[in-house]
Structures are given as structure tokens and as C-alpha cells.
């Protein structure tokens, strides 16, 4: 079992996210005395009788003063069982941007609802974003259960409604867990609550400690974006030529036959090197240096793949974008695409559809994609790039869209249509020309 879990929070403003995270930190004794003193002082300054645990997670002065949110904050806590990296998306989470950022690396998301309100649009929207970004597991924390008198019927109704929604998004039943909690009072966060005798499941922390973490799939085909070529040119290592990178998918052993993309040249792995010595095998997530049998031209930006099961090399790309910039995207836009270790020029040739988060349907042929909107686009790349589908690999199926003039990050890009609802009958992620959006989904006319 992995001893590290990366998780993200999601949920509407005032559902109790900050309080829940504060409670988790507080009850796991992850808050040290001087930090706690500061919270006690700040709470007293605000005239509060009990410490406001949400202050533990409010980072910046402007957030405290104006209640605006800059972005995701990261928290670290550990129990004897596991270490946790928590991407906390405080404040005005109607901004998809925060949720997308936190979700991009999360192995689990805790989605909050207010027990008095149940599943609301925001819940459905966030669940859709989490599904899109491929977060493998969800926890629905039905918070403020104290305000509905710890009522079992209310909880079951919300849990049932949410399960149905999550299933529609592609989650299996055992990847979603619902827990009745009170972040304020602490019920079922770390300690099992006496107020919910009808609930027999785990507390939130128990679940986080024990939930299986999907290991990077070892049976996936090997993918290795080359970051840097290591050539010591010292007397001791005169002919050393190693390709450094982080294994994005699969495993590798000396003797494996590989293909270098986009060139298509073949070779054999002779050695997997690290500063701690040679490895007999290495797997996804490890930073290593590969040595090959043949002297072929390989540089940063190339991808080394297992021979026989290679990604498609293409300059036409069908992708889903989460648009993160103030200035809207229109067809014809010239941008940069950073995929793996390669950055290429690109043009957005078509806006195919926009995901309507309210109705969970798609809208054909939008004239633009605005801040926080999600849509499917066609891109033409200045040179061919080896691409996997996002649903195959979060590492080799993802890319950034970058503004060539000021360098800002404009969008999170996902190769293909990872959300079933967005698929619209497209067969492959790469056959841009064959992609004919049909309208079998609940389509309303584009603007």
C-alpha cells in the first residue's frame, strides 16, 4: 500500500470546506502550538468565542481581508498510517480553475455538500470536473449534519442522489463513499460520532487512511519523455550518453526494445542508471536515466516508448480544454502547446462544443470559450507529436495551452474526450478529420 495520498477538496462556498480541512488538521494534531496560538488570537480579535478552524487554512492577507481567493493552497499532514498532500481550494470555488488545478494530480477528492441543501448544481459541476480530470475516487462529505438533527433519511436521500450522478459520470459504486459529518462539531471526521448510530461506515480520516490508492498501472505500455541528455564528457565517463526523465507510464528493463518518437528510430535499453546505482527495472513515477544500444539522435522533447505499443504521432489533435484565462478563446487562435517535455506552436482550428455544467450536456459550435468553461476543440500542431488519450494516461495525455506573447498558462488540455458526456460519438482522439460532432446529447442551440 502506498503511504502517500494526494487529495483535493471541492464544494460550494460556505459548505464548510475550510472548517473541515481545519478540523482534519486539528484532530490529527497536525497544527503546532504557535500556529494554533495565532488562530486563537485572530479568532478572539474577531470576537469569536471558539477558535475558527477555517483560519488555519486561509493563507494570504488579501484573502483574510477581502475574502477573495488567489488559488489552491497545499497542506501536509500525516498519521502513523499515511502521509497526505491536500490541495485545498478555499473561497469562491465557482471558479473551475481552482478545482481543475487541485484535481489534476489528486488521487481522491473530498466533495462537500451542506446537508440542508443536498446535491446542488455546484456539486454536480464539481463532480463532473473531477470525473473529467480523472480523479479515481470521491468522498461525498455530507456536512452540517448537526443542522438536520443527524437525520438518517436526509443523509440517505443525498447519498443516493449523488451515487446516481457519480455513476452517470463513470464512477463505479466502490469508488465513491458518502460520509455524514459535522466539520464544526467534529462528528465522523476523525472520531466516530455517537450522534449517528445509524451510520456504520468509516470516519473521513479512517477512509483516507485505508482507501486503496491506484498505483501507477505497471501493465501500461512504457512511456518516457526525455527531459535532458546527460553527457559528462569526463575521462571516467567519456562515452556516456544518458537520457534523463521521469517514467510517465509502464515499466522498463534492460533489454527492452524501444522506439524514439517522433523520429521512429528503434533501439534497445542497455542500462537504467541512477545516482544510487543501476536498476534491474524501473516503473512509472521514478526519475531515471536510460542508456541505449545505438547512437541515435535523441534530445529533449522526444518520447521513448515501448516498441509495438506506441502512441499515435500526429499534428492534428482533438482535445478537451478547461479554459483558465480572462481573455476568451476563439477559433483561429495561435497558441503554444506544452506536451510532456516538448513545446510546439499550434492553432485552434475549431471550437466543437462547450460543456454545459448546469445541464451536464454539450452545446455545439460555441463562438468562444470563456474563463472557467470546458469545451472540445480541434488543434493543428506545427509538428507531429506523440499523443496518448488522457483516459489512458494523465501524464502523457495532458498538455498546457500557453500564450506565446506573455507566457501565461491559458488552459489545461486533455487529449480526447475523457468525460463520456463530452464524447459526442468521436471515435479517436487523433482523427481530427473524422470527428463529426453529432447531437445525440441533450443539446441546446449554441449562442
Amino acid at each position, binding site marked *: 500500500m502506498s*503511504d*502517500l495520498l494526494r487529495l483535493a477538496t471541492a464544494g460550494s462556498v460556505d459548505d464548510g470546506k475550510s472548517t473541515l480541512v481545519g478540523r482534519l488538521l486539528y484532530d490529527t494534531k497536525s497544527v503546532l502550538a504557535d500556529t494554533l496560538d495565532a488562530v486563537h488570537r485572530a479568532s478572539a480579535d474577531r470576537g469569536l468565542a471558539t477558535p475558527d478552524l477555517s483560519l488555519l487554512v486561509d493563507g*494570504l492577507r488579501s484573502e483574510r481581508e477581502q475574502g477573495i481567493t488567489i488559488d*489552491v493552497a497545499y497542506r501536509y499532514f500525516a498519521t502513523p498510517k499515511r502521509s497526505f498532500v491536500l490541495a485545498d481550494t478555499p473561497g469562491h470555488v465557482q471558479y473551475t480553475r481552482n478545482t481543475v488545478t487541485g484535481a489534476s494530480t489528486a488521487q481522491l477528492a473530498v466533495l462537500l455538500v451542506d446537508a440542508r441543501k443536498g446535491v446542488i448544481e455546484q456539486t454536480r459541476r464539481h463532480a463532473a470536473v473531477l470525473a473529467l480530470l480523472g480523479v479515481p475516487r470521491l468522498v461525498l462529505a455530507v456536512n452540517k449534519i448537526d443542522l438536520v438533527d443527524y437525520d438518517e433519511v436526509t443523509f440517505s436521500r443525498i447519498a443516493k442522489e449523488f451515487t446516481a450522478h457519480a455513476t452517470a459520470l463513470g464512477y463505479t459504486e466502490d469508488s465513491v463513499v458518502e460520509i455524514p459529518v459535522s466539520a464544526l462539531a467534529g462528528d465522523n471526521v476523525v472520531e466516530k460520532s455517537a450522534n449517528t448510530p445509524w451510520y456504520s461506515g468509516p470516519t473521513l480520516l479512517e477512509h483516507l487512511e485505508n482507501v486503496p490508492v491506484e498505483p501507477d498501472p505497471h501493465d501500461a505500455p512504457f512511456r518516457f519523455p526525455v527531459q*535532458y541528455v546527460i553527457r559528462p564528457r569526463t575521462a571516467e565517463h567519456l562515452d556516456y550518453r544518458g537520457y534523463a*526523465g521521469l517514467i510517465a507510464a509502464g515499466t522498463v528493463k534492460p533489454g527492452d526494445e524501444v522506439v524514439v518518437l517522433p523520429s521512429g528510430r528503434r533501439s534497445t535499453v542497455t542500462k537504467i542508471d541512477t545516482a544510487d546505482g543501476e536498476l534491474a527495472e524501473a516503473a512509472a513515477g521514478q526519475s531515471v536515466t536510460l542508456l541505449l544500444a545505438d547512437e541515435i539522435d535523441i534530445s529533449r522533447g522526444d518520447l521513448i516508448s515501448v516498441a509495438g505499443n506506441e502512441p499515435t504521432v500526429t499534428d492534428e489533435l482533438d482535445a478537451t480544454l478547461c479554459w483558465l484565462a480572462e481573455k476568451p478563446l476563439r477559433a483561429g487562435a495561435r497558441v503554444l502547446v506544452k506536451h510532456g517535455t516538448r513545446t510546439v506552436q499550434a492553432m485552434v482550428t475549431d471550437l466543437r462544443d462547450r460543456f454545459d455544467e448546469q445541464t451536464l450536456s454539450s452545446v455545439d459550435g460555441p463562438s468562444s470559450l470563456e474563463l472557467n468553461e470546458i469545451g472540445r476543440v480541434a488543434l493543428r500542431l506545427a509538428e507531429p507529436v506523440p499523443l496518448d488519450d488522457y483516459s489512458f494516461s494523465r*501524464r502523457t495525455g495532458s498538455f498546457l495551452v500557453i500564450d506565446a506573447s506573455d507566457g501565461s*498558462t491559458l488552459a489545461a488540455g486533455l487529449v480526447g474526450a475523457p468525460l463520456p458526456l463530452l464524447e459526442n460519438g468521436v471515435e479517436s482522439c487523433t482523427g481530427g478529420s473524422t470527428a463529426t460532432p453529432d447531437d445525440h446529447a441533450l443539446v441546446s442551440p449554441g449562442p
Partner: protein
Amino acid sequence: MTTATLDTLGRLESEAIHIFREVAGEFDRPVILFSGGKDSTLLLHLAIKAFYPAPVPFPLLHVDTGHNFDEVIEFRDRVVAQHGLRLEVAKVQDWIDDGRLEERPDGTRNPLQTVPLLDSITQHKFDAVFGGGRRDEERARAKERIFSLRTAFGQWDPKRQRPELWNLYNGRHRAGEHVRVFPLSNWTELDVWNYIEREGIELPDIYYSHEREVFLRDGMWLAEGPWGKARDGETLQRKVVRYRTVGDGSCTGAVESDAADIHAVIAEVAASRLTERGATRADDRLSEAAMEDRKREGYF
């Protein structure tokens, strides 16, 4: 199957190595901030591993307040020589001597590091600056990116920071701007110590318990040095102490501790009820947003 799933330290190490290599691949003139303290020593250790068996392709930079502990400077120079590295030293004293900076009334030189740092970055045209900052150190740092964009004036504008998605880092910047890079972002203090133990990394002695003449000021045990002496009413006492962080001697306090080796230090850190900065750094105690303000001005 022989490939074990990476443990926490293995994942953190692999992530840091990935970050070093990304910067080497995308920037023209990176530099590693190196003071000889534990975080920067760890940083250097990871850089060496990232490019093995080739040498580290970056120089080092130390902004020297002149208020350092002798043991740390001696250690710094020894490590630099041992690995055949190139070290640039920007001495705060030089900036004071030629009038570009003025000594503060309280004698503290930590805040004076910002100008020599920014001047050195401009002078050497550094475009990526590695720092040992960790997100668990302080609330304003919890929002810091791994690639943190700085303006031509070295300033940090939280609103201009880019979303960091997956492990794709965007290091693009305009001429004159630079990027601060924090490979240790996701490490906690305990991770750092556990890794130091696992890798057998040598640190300056002052991180381990020793006897020292100290006096009490603002609840911290300070030592005498070029930064100042005990004032009236403050009495020097011989105590068994160690340092949890190492910075300007005028505002870095020692903690009473008999943790004389790495195992004892790990046990102490794991049981500690104070954050590392709260325990020992006067500069962070100044206000609720002290660190944030210094970051905006161009501090680490």
C-alpha cells in the same frame, strides 16, 4: 515484480529531480541559492543526483549577511570545494560599504538580503533561481507555486502566478523577469530530516546539540556574534542547544535540545509542538503577514 512502489521519500526525491531537469532543459542561466543550511544542502544533494554522473550544470549563489555562524560558512566552502562547484557570494557588507544599503537600527540583516539578491540576479542574468522554500513552513508559502514568476523588480505578485497542472511546469518569462523554483515545495520538516538520515547527508554541526553561550531575548535563545551582544539585563548562560533553522545570527534562535545525532533530531522534530520558524525565527513573528510582505518585495 521487483519494482517496489515508491515510498514518500522516494516520490519526493523523484519529483525534485524532475524539477531540476526541467529547469536545466528550459532555462539559460539557472543558479542554486546555497547558504550551507540544511534545506540548501538538501537542494544541492538532489541536484547532484539529478545530473549524475555529470557535474551539476549550475553555479551556486550565497547572499552573505556577514551575520553567519562560522561553522556554517566553513561547511559551505568545504562542500563547494568537494564537489568542484562554482560559488558566487554577494556580501551584504559590500552593499552597506558603498552606500547601496543602510544598516537597520535593530542591526538585523535578514531584510537586507533582498537587494543584493536582486542585484546579483540582474548582474549575472540568472533566469531561474532555485530556493529551498517549503510550503509547510508558513501560510503564505502554502500557496507558492513550484515555478514562481518574478517581475523585473523581483517582485512576487500572487495574482500573476500560474495554475500548476499535472507535472507540467510553465517557465516562460519575459526578458528581465526570472522564475524562482522550489523543488522542496512538497517536503515537510520531518521529510527533510528523514531523508537526511536515509541519504547520510552531512550538515553543519550546529544542527545537533552542543554547548553554547546564549542569552534570552523575546523568548528565544540568541548567541553573541558580529551581529551583536547581550544587552543590559540579558545574561549570558551556558546551555545545551541546537539550531532548527540557520539564518542571520541576530534573529535566529537556538532551541534547548540534547538531540546530538540525526536519530534524536528526528524524534525531537516528530514530537515538537512548534513550527520550525515559530520556534526560532524572529523575522517571521513580526506580523501575521510578515512572510507574505517580504516575498512580495523579492525575498525568497
